[in-house]
């Protein structure tokens, strides 16, 4: 029987990190969130104000909708890439991996601006479409929801690919060979062996993308043309244009709580613990 070390002693290596987080993260964020409860007639005045203006409900719903759509799109586009990465011979896999990671070296801001230039009416993409006679007039690809989707998928796709790849790499190829020996076709082997084993990666990647997507600010601000408003953009507007930090803070807390609720629901439905083998 193994002797487990006392709980407290096991936590000692974490103390420096916990101190750092407390001073530079927990304390400032708490003070910021407390702002949402001050300055009004009552502690919950800001929240009443948010509820009263249908704006925040509309923006919250739109933010969730965008995040879900982008997550699904990244899943559909990223799964085949991750599959290729996981099943390719090592040298090719390394090369492909470098290609997937390279975009991380360019800032989100630079990439978003580049999309603005590429997708505009006189931009390269439209010029190509016109030259190939696919369309007769320039297509509005940016300064709208489509532009936001394109930009966000482009930025979040590497995260999804890497999440899926991390799990797919752990799938034992001999399992697939065994399935083939037992009479399964390649497609059957994929559907009944590989795919179920890759689901933890799908779940983790989707959750991460969804949560990150909820906080997106720069890409929708630049590519949305003012027609797309996400919660992060609204918080920024309350701080910069309306100078109402209390309202911004209240909205930030609402977003935080909504995200946590989503995570809890996700956990319940998909039973993440069991999927990851945590007993």
């Amino acid at each position, binding site marked *: 029987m193994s002797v487990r070390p006392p709980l407290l002693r096991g936590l000692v290596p974490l103390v420096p990190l916990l101190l750092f987080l407390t001073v530079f993260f927990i304390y400032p964020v708490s003070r910021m969130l407390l702002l949402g409860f001050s300055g009004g007639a009552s502690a919950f005045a800001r929240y009443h104000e948010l509820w009263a*203006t*249908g*704006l925040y409900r*509309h*923006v919250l719903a739109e933010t969730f909708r965008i995040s879900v759509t982008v997550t699904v799109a990244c899943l559909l586009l990223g799964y085949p890439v991750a599959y290729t990465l996981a099943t390719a011979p090592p040298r090719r896999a390394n090369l492909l991996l470098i290609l997937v990671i390279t975009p991380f070296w360019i800032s989100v801001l630079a990439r978003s601006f580049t999309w*603005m*230039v590429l997708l*505009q*009416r*006189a*931009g390269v993409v439209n010029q190509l479409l016109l030259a190939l006679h696919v369309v007769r007039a320039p297509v*509005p690809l940016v*300064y*709208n929801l489509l532009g936001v989707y394109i930009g966000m998928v482009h930025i979040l796709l590497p995260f999804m690919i890497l999440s899926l790849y991390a799990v797919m790499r752990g799938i034992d190829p001999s399992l697939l060979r065994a399935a083939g020996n037992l009479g399964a076709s390649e497609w059957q082997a994929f559907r009944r062996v590989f795919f179920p084993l890759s689901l933890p990666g799908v779940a983790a990647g989707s959750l991460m993308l969804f949560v990150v997507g909820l906080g997106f600010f720069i890409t929708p*601000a630049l590519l949305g*043309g*003012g*027609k797309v*408003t996400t919660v992060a953009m*609204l918080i920024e*507007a*309350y*701080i*910069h*244009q*309306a*100078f*109402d930090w209390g309202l911004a803070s209240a909205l930030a807390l609402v977003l935080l709580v909504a995200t946590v609720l989503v995570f809890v629901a996700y956990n319940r439905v998909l039973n993440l613990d069991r999927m990851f083998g945590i007993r």
Partner: protein
Amino acid sequence: MGTDRRVDEVIEQYYLGTIGRREFVRRALLLGVSAAAIPGLVVEFLSGPARAQTKGTGEVVVCTWGGSYADAQKKAFFDPFEQETGIRVRVTGIPDVAKIRAMVSTNNVEWDFVDAEGEMMIALGHDGLLERADYSIIDRKDLIPGTWSEWGVGSVAYGYALGWSTKVYPPTGRQPRTWADFFNAKRFPGRRAMYNEPIPALEFALLADGVPKNKLYPLDVTRAFNYLKAHKAMVDVWYKQTTQIPTLMRGQEVDLIEGTSGRLSDLKQSGAPVDFTWNQGAWLQSYWIVPKGAKNRENAMKLMAYYTRPQNEAKFASLFASGVPNAKAYGLMPKAAAALLPTAPQNVVHQFQVDSAWWAANLAAVTKQWLAFVGS
């Protein structure tokens, strides 16, 4: 000083670079200046009472609006100022009231000299967040009334106007002239862009709805928002920074735009297929302000004093068409350049001045409605 007005003008032209050294010497001699005195003329010119005080050390951090506007300011003011005084000028950022409030309240003021809109200055001054302008070293006797305040001297008079693409609306055909035209999709089908700010979108909406120019203030906010809501679908792009105006017009992203007259004029002058009208345009005065607790307050005041010089203002206006505070500057500009300014007499008569005092009192409330309008 002992030199007469015509000699002064010749010295100014040489100083500005309008005439070369040989021409300067020739004209000075023609005006009766003795040959021996010529080398000393420029030094004497530079060391006049206001000028002697501007020598200094260190740096001053200027916050202005970027793009070709900031480039013109650099050429006309900041570079000559640096050469003359030895004070280094660092140009940065985009002015932002929220940032200034945060900076002053945390006593970490990064900007010494900020190009602020009128209502920004009034609001910040009212809340005690600005240093008072030091008029003991700033010479304000030639400044046009309304272009200086207790908080600072005027930077530029800028305007908002209706611009369009001449490719889509050539001079041979119909061209938009009023804000009612801007919001008329039948007569002017095309894509539109507006500045994502309530100033002066509300005024333009009221004008489009039929309110006469002289009856705009106090603004009927409800009526303005109703009009805007009814026409919101027409607007394809709400841009956040005025530096996007050239991108939108050059990229042919939109055919009609509510933009700043300075940038539209700049585009037109540089040959882009863009035109605009002064009709029903709005003009406003912006001011240089010094946030309270600025690290280089003295240098900022020296730069403010430098900013009133007519010859530099004339040069700036020729690089970027904006109204300037010093009345003498208008006489120093070529007539063609003066005609491009929003405050030139032939242009200002078509426009209206935005009431900064009304906006300073109402901006907070209107902004929330604006956010709800754009976000919905």
